[in-house]
């Protein structure tokens, strides 16, 4: 229900202008054919609902990118003349309700045409054509030229009908409306189910790109309202870019056709592991260590790739950078480099082209390692900023603004957030406490170090698990500072839980049902802690919160290198599984994350304060509100 209502409320002014305004404002001075609009009260009353959904139902027009090419050329030509004034005029039109069919709108109408299978679209464009045809014949021709032959014929058909006989028009329109509604329902369903890649091709999403499918429609539309100018222009771009566009971050890898498609455009040639766990067919499982040399040789062939991005990607791939914050900061800094070295190619606009570039970089990063939620949020922020850049800014100004925006994101959302979290969390540590932590969460480490600086007397139990053994690194750093530590493996957690007074955990993400998505094993520790009635405190920056929900650790996860399990580092005596790695009966499962149910968590410490897990959706909502208003 939500997904349906949202687009209507916000999108209406943007997409439905043509038909909507003609009917709802019959007194409009520019209305050329008042009879046509006034005589269809039925159509006009229904049209908002039917139309408001149209952005949702327009499928990704990937099949005929060639069709749109002439149009794009035309648009580009138009923009070459006066890009800024052009876009402004487009925007002006809508609130006024004036029907001077601007080139911008015509071009939009023609974008939606390729997806002519949906009748609602046809009607939309027909309405556009109808309204535009009367006042300015020159513009009409433009729109007709851009139409695919089949559709233009149909449209002209309808046009003919509409003029002499209103009854017939109503019939046609009604049918069109009915069909539109039907299609809209289907689309809404698809949207509700978040079917990957189905909804991402909507008009509204063109401004934010398909790389972030999990994004709520409301967010998209907010952006669309705030910046209609750039978004409209970008419409043409998407179709071309879709080819090199990012694979869906939550792509289902058991869908063979998608995997093949994704592989074709992949830069990183990951070899799929053969011996895979049946339950995790939907997640990518790669042979590790095979791609690095291959990528290195490719370095000079990948000319569109910025070296900074390339470097970060390789670091992800080799595991040199890990941890949500570190990965996110590395990526953002690479993007800063990208922005610094960016220059708009001729015949392109900065917003459009840069979004496309960022998208292609993101797809490269995804190939190196699946995105974390925090990175997804950061990418969403960057694209949002690009989309909202005022068109009046010169290139250098825009670049400077973007760079400072990214800088601000790093400082505010990550670094400052951590200091706030530390400030909050330290109040929970008392003298004589025995604190347990799992893995190597950066936020918790900062809390512990700060508490130690405050001369609090406490002991830390570092629980670790194979195969990463990140706890040993944390242990090293804590001991260096002189903190009293005890080290053990996760299996022994119920042995040591007796003496623990508080458990501090980190998180990769906090989902809006309160589930904490974190390093695998966190759930075990939290479970044992709650069984022993020990409070569990999760430290997580608010930018890692996400409105997604998840119930188990299986639907969405990341698979690590399976060979890391069969080989035990530093223990030569453990070699039972040598030579069995290719046995069809034996699989290794190296899960990276797990989902901790919210009932194990006493408190989440974020930069917004200390909240119970039930308050997560509130923070997610507030955060997004703030995010879109910035």
């Amino acid at each position, binding site marked *: 229900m939500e997904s349906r209502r949202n687009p209507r409320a916000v999108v209406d002014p943007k997409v439905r202008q043509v038909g909507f305004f003609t009917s709802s404002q019959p007194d409009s001075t520019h209305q050329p054919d008042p009879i046509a609009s006034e005589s269809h009260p039925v159509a006009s009353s229904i049209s908002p609902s039917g139309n408001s959904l149209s952005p949702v139902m327009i499928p990704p027009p990937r099949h005929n990118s060639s069709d749109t090419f002439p149009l794009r050329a035309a648009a580009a030509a138009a923009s070459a003349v006066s890009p800024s004034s052009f876009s402004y005029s487009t925007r002006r039109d809508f609130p006024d309700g004036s029907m001077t069919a601007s080139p911008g709108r015509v071009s939009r109408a023609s974008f939606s045409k390729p997806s002519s299978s949906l009748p609602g679209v046809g009607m939309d464009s027909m309405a556009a054509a109808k309204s535009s045809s009367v006042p300015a014949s020159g513009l009409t021709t433009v729109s007709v030229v851009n139409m695919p032959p089949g559709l233009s014929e149909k449209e002209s058909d309808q046009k003919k009908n509409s003029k002499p006989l209103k009854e017939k028009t109503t019939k046609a329109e009604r049918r069109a409306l009915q069909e539109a509604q039907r299609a809209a329902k289907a689309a809404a369903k698809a949207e509700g189910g978040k079917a990957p890649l189905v909804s991402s091709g909507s008009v509204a999403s063109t401004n934010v790109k398909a790389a972030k499918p999990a994004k709520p429609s409301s967010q998209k539309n907010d952006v669309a309202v705030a910046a209609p100018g750039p978004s409209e222009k970008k419409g043409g771009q998407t179709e071309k870019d879709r080819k090199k566009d990012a694979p869906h971050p939550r792509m289902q890898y058991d869908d063979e056709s998608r995997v093949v498609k994704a592989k074709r455009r992949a830069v990183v040639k990951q070899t799929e592991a053969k011996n895979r766990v049946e339950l995790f067919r939907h997640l990518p499982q790669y042979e590790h260590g095979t791609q690095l040399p291959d990528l290195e040789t490719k370095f000079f062939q990948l000319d569109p790739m910025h070296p900074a991005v390339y470097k970060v990607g390789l670091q992800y791939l080799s595991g040199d950078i890990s941890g949500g914050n570190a990965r996110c900061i590395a990526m953002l800094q690479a993007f800063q480099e990208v922005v610094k070295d960016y220059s708009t190619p001729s015949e392109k606009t900065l917003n459009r082209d840069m979004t496309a570039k960022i998208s292609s970089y993101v797809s490269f990063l995804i190939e190196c390692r699946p995105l974390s939620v925090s990175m997804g949020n950061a990418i969403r922020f960057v694209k949002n900023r690009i989309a909202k850049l005022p068109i009046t800014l010169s290139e250098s100004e825009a670049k400077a603004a973007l760079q400072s925006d990214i800088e601000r994101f790093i400082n505010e959302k990550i670094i400052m957030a951590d200091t706030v979290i530390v400030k909050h969390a330290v109040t929970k540590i008392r003298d004589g406490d025995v604190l347990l932590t799992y893995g190597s969460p950066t936020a918790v480490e900062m809390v512990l170090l700060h508490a130690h600086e405050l001369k609090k007397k406490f002991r830390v139990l570092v629980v670790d698990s194979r195969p990463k053994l990140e706890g040993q690194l944390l242990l090293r750093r804590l001991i260096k500072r002189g903190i009293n530590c005890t080290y053990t493996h*996760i299996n022994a957690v119920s042995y040591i839980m007796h003496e623990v007074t508080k458990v501090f955990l980190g998180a990769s993400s906090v989902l809006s049902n309160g589930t904490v998505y974190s390093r695998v094993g966190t759930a075990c520790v939290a479970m044992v802690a709650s069984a022993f009635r020990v409070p569990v405190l999760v430290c997580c920056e608010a930018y890692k919160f996400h409105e997604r929900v998840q119930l188990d*650790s299986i639907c969405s996860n990341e698979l690590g290198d399976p060979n890391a399990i069969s080989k035990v580092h530093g223990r030569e005596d453990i070699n039972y*599984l040598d030579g069995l790695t290719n046995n069809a009966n034996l699989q*290794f499962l190296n899960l990276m994350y797990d989902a901790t149910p919210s009932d194990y968590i006493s408190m989440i410490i974020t930069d917004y304060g200390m909240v119970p897990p039930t308050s997560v959706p509130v923070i997610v909502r507030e955060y997004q509100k703030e995010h879109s208003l910035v």
Partner: protein
Amino acid sequence: MPDVQSMVLEFVNKLRKRKIEGSQATARCTVELLRSVISHHRVPHANQASALIDAVKAVGGQLVAANPVELAVGNVVRRVLHIIREEDLSLATAAVAGLDLLDASDDDEDVNGKGIGYPAMSAAVVAAAARSTLRPPSLQTLLEGTPESATVPYTSSSGADSESKTADKSSITRKLKHDVIEGVNQLIHEIAGCHEQIAEQAVEHIHQNEVILTLGSSRTVLEFLCAAKEKKRSFRVFVAEGAPRYQGHLLAKELVARGLQTTVITDSAVFAMISRVNMVIIGAHAVMANGGVIGPVGVNMAALAAKKHAVPFVVLAGSHKLCPLYPHNPEVLLNELRSPSELLDFGEFSDCLDFGSGSGSPLLQVVNPTFDYVPPSLVSLFITDTGGHNPSYMYRLIADYYSADDLVM
């Protein structure tokens, strides 16, 4: 005699150095040692049973002290003591029956009905007293208990034997020892065959396409799963690797060798995977009288996760693993800490592990326990060689195997 003594010492040393691992191996070694102790023990004419019991207790005490955490040793010693008592009793009742010209059934009636006035009263009372010692303390035994039964049942019983039957004394002596050794042999057989007994029940518990999670390396579990596999059940096994001993790797290797679909997961992924698991099957190290389980480290975590997801948590245990003790703080008292070197590379952390540096106490401590305790509330089912049992029934099962006198050794 000296060779027995040396054998005992050797075994004690092995236990102390943890050369023998696994409750089954320990149990078998213990019972074989006790058999040779019994067979080499020169039994006096009087009080043969008590002499044997004393001898076994002496050796058993040493063994238990050598590795108090290996509860199977104590269990087996108690079982052997129980066998001696039982054989002694049956001999005594047989002797009484022969003396009194009464049928065995009549004799039983006498015992139950406290046959005062019968000519064989004294012998019957003795037999009743002997029997009462074999039973767990109950209201009935308390009521019918004669004063001497609690204190000196064995001296009196064998004393009565020797007094009344001087003629065939030697034959009875030989017969007792023979019977006891026979009984011990039976026990050895039982320990060796418990896997098959348990595995026979596998088909009743594993259905087609089941997903089973297991932990640690247990021969019982291996046989159990393979028995189901042999019955053409196809199912999938998740094995938690069980760091830092990685016994899961060992189990996975054997399961793969037998053609089972096996997936090795890290211990930390137990919670993540448990939602897709139909059953958790583990082999116990020991089962306590309250139904609690001592198992490989990490078992408690798996049991909690299974409870959370309402997955049946099944424990396989041979009867030699049933311990008649009630645990107190078993996580600590019945546990054993292994070397930190299994967790940390000493080379890397040598500076922190050093006691001599700084204030005298090291900054870093490493905890590496071997066992984990699962409270009975988390266990769904025990499968022993006698069938499936509830955790709440374990105390009764244990009463069948041990006599109350031996609980404290």
